[in-house]
């Protein structure tokens, strides 16, 4: 298993995010995390990424715990896309994407031509091929989001942990990004966990879903089993009805 969690308990202060969560993600699998604002989706994702400690339970990457792996080896296995985009100092898009190469470089090494090729390929993959030398600050919110995704692609991890990868993206790039991720999962056997807000996209682009109900309860399983009118209505606290013949972007 690329990512496993056993009996995982996560909380934010007094608020319980999940308790007794078991999770197994094989290479190539795509898991969507769904839930209301404040349910703890990002917190759970950061915990799975090893960035914050869990209250209880064990997380393993490829069979090894984060403490066994160490920070650098973990960074070569899993990439994490956070929500915050803040760069107080000017830098180019290419420089930003090259930071993804950090775990692959020795302490005194400088980025090689090969690293730059990897970064440029990552930029091309997210549709920013011509933007390498642009100042990051001049990019739009959606373009910065795609530059952040390119940084994660340049990191070349085998597990992507994505916190709202579609934030700031227009409809076209939402679909393009999800198709890119699906391609990586299929072709390169990348395991993906992503926080999404649209159950329709989860149904279409993921094979598993994890619902966080916000009170510590959760439900996890294949999308067809987990995503239905009852669970989603309960999840969002708003009645949802399944409609088959709607227009969706191809």
């Amino acid at each position: 298993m690329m990512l496993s969690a056993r009996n995982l308990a996560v909380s934010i202060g007094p608020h319980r995010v999940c308790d007794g969560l078991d999770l197994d993600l094989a290479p190539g699998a795509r898991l969507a995390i769904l839930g209301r604002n404040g349910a703890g989706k990002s917190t759970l994702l950061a915990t799975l990424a090893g960035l914050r400690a869990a209250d209880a339970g064990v997380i393993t990457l490829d069979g090894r715990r984060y403490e066994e792996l160490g920070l650098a080896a973990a960074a070569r296995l899993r990439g994490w896309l956070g929500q915050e985009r803040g760069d107080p100092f000017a830098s180019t898009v290419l420089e930003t994407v090259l930071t993804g190469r950090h775990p692959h470089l020795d302490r005194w090494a400088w980025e090689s031509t090969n690293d730059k090729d990897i970064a440029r390929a990552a930029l091309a993959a997210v549709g920013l091929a011509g933007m390498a030398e642009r100042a990051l600050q001049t990019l739009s919110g959606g373009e910065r989001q795609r530059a952040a995704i390119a940084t994660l692609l340049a990191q070349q991890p085998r597990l992507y942990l994505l916190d709202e990868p579609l934030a700031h993206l227009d409809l076209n790039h939402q679909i393009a990004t999800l198709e890119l991720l699906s391609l990586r999962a299929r072709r390169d056997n990348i395991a993906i966990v992503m926080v999404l807000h649209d159950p329709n996209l989860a149904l279409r682009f993921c094979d598993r879903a994890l619902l966080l109900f916000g009170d510590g309860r959760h439900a996890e399983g294949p999308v067809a089993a987990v995503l239905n009118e009852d669970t989603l209505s309960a999840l969002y606290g708003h009645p949802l009805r399944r409609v088959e013949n709607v227009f969706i972007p191809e």
Partner: protein
Amino acid sequence: MPTRRRALLVLALLALLSLASLAVALAVGSVPVALGEVLGALAGADTPARQIVVDLRLPRALAGFACGGLLALAGALMQVLLRNPLADPYVLGISGGAGVGALAAMLFGLAGIAIAGFSFVGALAAMLLVFGLAHGDGSWTQTRLLLTGVVVAAGCGAVVALILTVAPEQKIHGMLFWLMGDLSQATTVAPTLTVLAITLAVTLPFARELNLLARGAEQALALGVRVPTLRRIVYFVAALATAAAVTTAGSIGFIGLIVPHLVRLAIGNDQRLLLPAVVLAGGSLLVLADTLARTVVAPTQLPVGVLTALIGVPVFLYLLSRSNRA
């Protein structure tokens, strides 16, 4: 993004600039010394100029270079640590602590090395106080560290004002010079130069990790940077650099804020190049400013801190307005 070769080229040019600034500092003054004589005196020739160049001007020039380098390095590190372009070496109250120490020493009638000792102790006390308070509950956000430092600095400022109020008339002038930054008392340069070498040697191995830290702690952690350890190292190195500089020459302003920005505007924000470059640029700038300070209205010596501000502010504003289009 600089390549390693371009970085070495830039550093070589800045090293030349540093040597040139030192040469100017040794040659220029109330008694001008020709460049050939300067070199002769440094080589050990027993000329009349030897005393002026080697005993008077060289320690002061080297002290200026060391202080400029330390302040610029501390400023660059603070800006990364706090992820705030407005940060400078003094923002966390270290110079305030040093100021309280130095002025207290002067108030008690101490002189020379005792003032340096007191100011170093004051700087260390402020550093530990801010670190302890900001780190109290185990979390360390930039805002908390910044606010703690700013408040401690404000407290030190109040104590400095209090000392100035109660100090006898004849001591006020010396105190004001110290507060504005002054290299005329700098005679022992070996410790300052040593601190400069140590701080640079400690930070350079972490330069690429600092690039990541500047972009955000969580992202850096996810990319394999040992963030809490790195932050502690950067904090203590920057604090030590500031304490050493302030102890040697008082609170010289603007070098620590402006030199990192000047260099960043010129060569970008890759810390692997930026950190050594700001040391050379900051050192050169302070040497030149100090040379001006002691010659421009000779025999009166101006506090060099005033000149660094008078030079630094317009140059910085000019470069900033030029780079707006980027």
